[in-house]
């Protein structure tokens, strides 16, 4: 707070005038204001508005916005498609993240040492990260399309008998296709973060271990893993938060089908919100989904912070 003495000090003795200080204070706010207004307009207001939508009818086909209590939540909770889509989300995001983590770690370990062409190889490996998921989905549709895609043909040539897998419309191949596309695109993400972790381990630690006669497996388990554990958790947290929003590839590759078998929570919310326009039900579903996501985020962030404080 400005003291009387400070306020009386003029510019001649090198101190700031009160008017200049006021201008300085306002200037700070002026700089922050656009961002603050933007956040208020596009985040806070819609969030508050959505709370109102939760408890009224906001279904375009039913005129008016009558208060409906918890009906919107009830409709989502008792909708078998909603419950199923949640399980699909859990299953797909878990499998995707686990596979991507293991592959990413393996590639990072392989790339941790320097060798000729390493830079080029790393550049090629991370290319999928820069491709839009919609395009990734479309490419995989072309690859896996039965019978026009090359996958079944190549498999037939390899196996010596005709392969007629319905990658996009047959269970469980449609799930395999979705996982393939996701793993192809996002393994590089894990790889990049884990590689950063691996390269930060001081080489003398490995040298000491080698002198002590520690085997490769023990080196990995007792040196590498503890050193990069925070990076691992960070990579898994970031990727998991993204993976549970899975939508784009499902939209392009399976359209949620056959039936509703590949509906993820995001795809379900999109369908009821923007195909059927049951906005209040979609809002209730989105809130339920957000709360469940927050629980996961809370657990992961807490674990991350605990690890950081050690």
């Amino acid at each position, binding site marked *: 707070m*400005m003291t009387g003495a*400070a306020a009386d*000090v003029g510019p001649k003795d*090198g*101190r*700031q005038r009160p008017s200049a*200080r006021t201008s300085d204070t306002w*200037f700070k706010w002026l700089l922050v204001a656009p961002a603050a207004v933007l956040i208020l307009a596009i985040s806070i207001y819609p969030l508050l508005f959505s709370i109102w939508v939760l408890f009224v009818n906001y*279904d*375009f*086909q*039913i*005129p008016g916005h009558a208060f409906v209590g918890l009906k919107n939540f009830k*409709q989502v909770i008792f909708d078998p498609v909603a419950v199923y889509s949640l399980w699909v989300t859990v299953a797909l995001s878990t499998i995707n993240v686990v596979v991507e983590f293991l592959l990413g770690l393996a590639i990072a370990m392989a790339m941790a040492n320097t060798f000729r062409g390493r830079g080029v190889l790393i550049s090629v490996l991370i290319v999928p990260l820069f491709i839009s998921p919609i395009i990734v989905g479309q490419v995989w549709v072309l690859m896996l*399309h*039965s*019978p*026009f895609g090359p996958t079944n043909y190549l498999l037939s040539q390899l196996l010596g008998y005709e392969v*007629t897998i*319905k990658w*996009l*419309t*047959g*269970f469980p191949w449609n799930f395999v296709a979705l996982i393939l596309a996701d793993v192809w695109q996002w393994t590089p993400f894990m790889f990049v973060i884990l590689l950063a972790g691996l390269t930060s381990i001081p080489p003398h630690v490995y040298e000491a271990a080698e002198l002590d006669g520690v085997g490769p497996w023990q080196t990995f388990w007792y040196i590498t893993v503890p050193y990069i554990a925070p990076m691992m958790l960070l990579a898994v947290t970031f990727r998991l938060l993204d993976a549970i929003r899975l939508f784009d590839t499902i939209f392009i590759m*399976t*359209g*949620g*089908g*056959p*039936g*509703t*078998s590949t509906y993820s929570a995001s795809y379900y919310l999109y*369908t009821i919100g*923007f*195909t*059927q*326009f*049951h906005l209040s039900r979609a809002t209730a579903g989105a809130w339920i989904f957000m709360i469940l996501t927050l629980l996961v985020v809370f657990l992961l962030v807490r674990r991350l912070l605990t690890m950081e404080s050690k």
Partner: protein
Amino acid sequence: MNERENRDFQAGLEDEVNAFLRGEPTRRTFIKRFGQAMGMLPIVGGALGSGVQWALAQAKMELEDPSTPLGKAQALALKASTEGPADGSAFRAVEAAKQFAGVNLNMTYEAGLQGLDPRNFSGPLWEELTGIKSTVVELPSPDMYSKPIAEHIAQSGAYDILDLQPQWTPALADGGVIAPLDDLIAKYMNPADLEDYHPLYKALPTYKGKIWGLFDDGDMFALYYRKDIFEDPKLNEAYEAKFSKKLEVPKSWEDYAQVAQFITDQMAPNVYGAGHFRKAGSPGNQFDFMQQFRSNGGAFFDGDMKAALATDIGVKTLQNMIAANKASIPGNEELDAVSLWVAWLQGKIAMMYSWPPTGRMSAGYSQSDKAISFIPQSSIAGKVGYAIVPGGNPEHAFGFNKALAADSANPEAAFLFMQWACSPPVSLARCMLPYALRDPYRISHFKSELYGELFPSAPEYLANLNASANVGLLDPIMPGAQDYQLSLDRMCTSVWAGTDPMEALKTAAAEWDATTENLGVDAQKGFYQEFLKLPGATADNTVEKLGMAVTL
């Protein structure tokens, strides 16, 4: 201010003064220039907006050589708009619209080929005739429903003219998104124009006794088959030997599956008996189910407004569809409409049923325009026959009404464009554009000699579209139509993946009942009863059965 703050301030001040003396930007100049830039925004924004609008507006008008059938149709449309007859809707619309010169109309169109007509032909021509500009807003099919709703909720007035599927009319009318046209029709339109609509399409924009749009696209399914295959003597002999009857274009769905399987057995992998667009959301499943289910005698709802899908008729319908799938080109369940066209035009399929552009593409007419180069050239031109789909009741799948956005700032100008574009001479020229996906819907279209000159078999093609409309079935026009059809698509794709048909029907029926309950059983019952009064609502009240069939 403590000592550190004072030191920071002095350092900052010194930097600023030095920067000023060097002529570099300072905080003061930053604020000044920022303010100037903000002040300029409205001016620049306006100019930028006009530039963007200009860029997004229609391209240069493309008129055909006047000696061609399309060129002649375009010349007639121009003449009708400028010289009359004075009581013609095209002429009236142009004359009345001149008072709105300078206005800009925003009109939604399905993204892709649909938007080329207003960009290259009707939009520029309208501007030349009236001085009214137009901006085409291309939207993916689902967004054509959701965007107008979102803009209406936001009261943005973003659109003036909406291209809408007739099945959406009740929801959008009740929601206040679209405005009734009765007064404007009475004020400007020649009533004879309404009488020129095929009876199946005439009533489509009517809801609760008011007219909510002008119908503008006859999306009638028809069967397209390879005449050369059906006329092949060896194939005929083999078929007769196997089934003790002649190989003919199938009249029932059972025959269809049988003939398709026979051709596949005889000719695969060169040619397969049939092909369908069965991919989830493609959207063929619901239309195919609805046409077969109703031609098999099915009704959508019982007297209590409970879904009547899970019946023997429902099972029979799905079993027929499964049999047809088995007889089809490999990958049938993963094809969308365009992929199916590609297979068809390459001569890989003996029969398909789809929308009317199939006929124009088969003849190679559509591909005469570079805009449609993504479709291969036809290898089957001159070999294609036209028939009503098996079962005798083809689906009128989708279609478009031109509707007036309730929030339009220029409703009269918007309506006048709609009236002009849908008037007989102008709509004929639009339907004849090679890249157009607008299909004949007026009696005058079906009778048009100019259209009949577009390709050698065009007269038979038009006759078949008219005959199909005489016995055609409408998509259910009632609130919740979107939801009901989504359930059918899910049901079909789940059956293609192996779900028991009855189980799938029960799931779909439960979803239908939930939709009905959500919208109000009594209200939905009323809407359904209204729908049943429309010609083409069921196989028992087609245009033909109501004695209104159009003969050419």
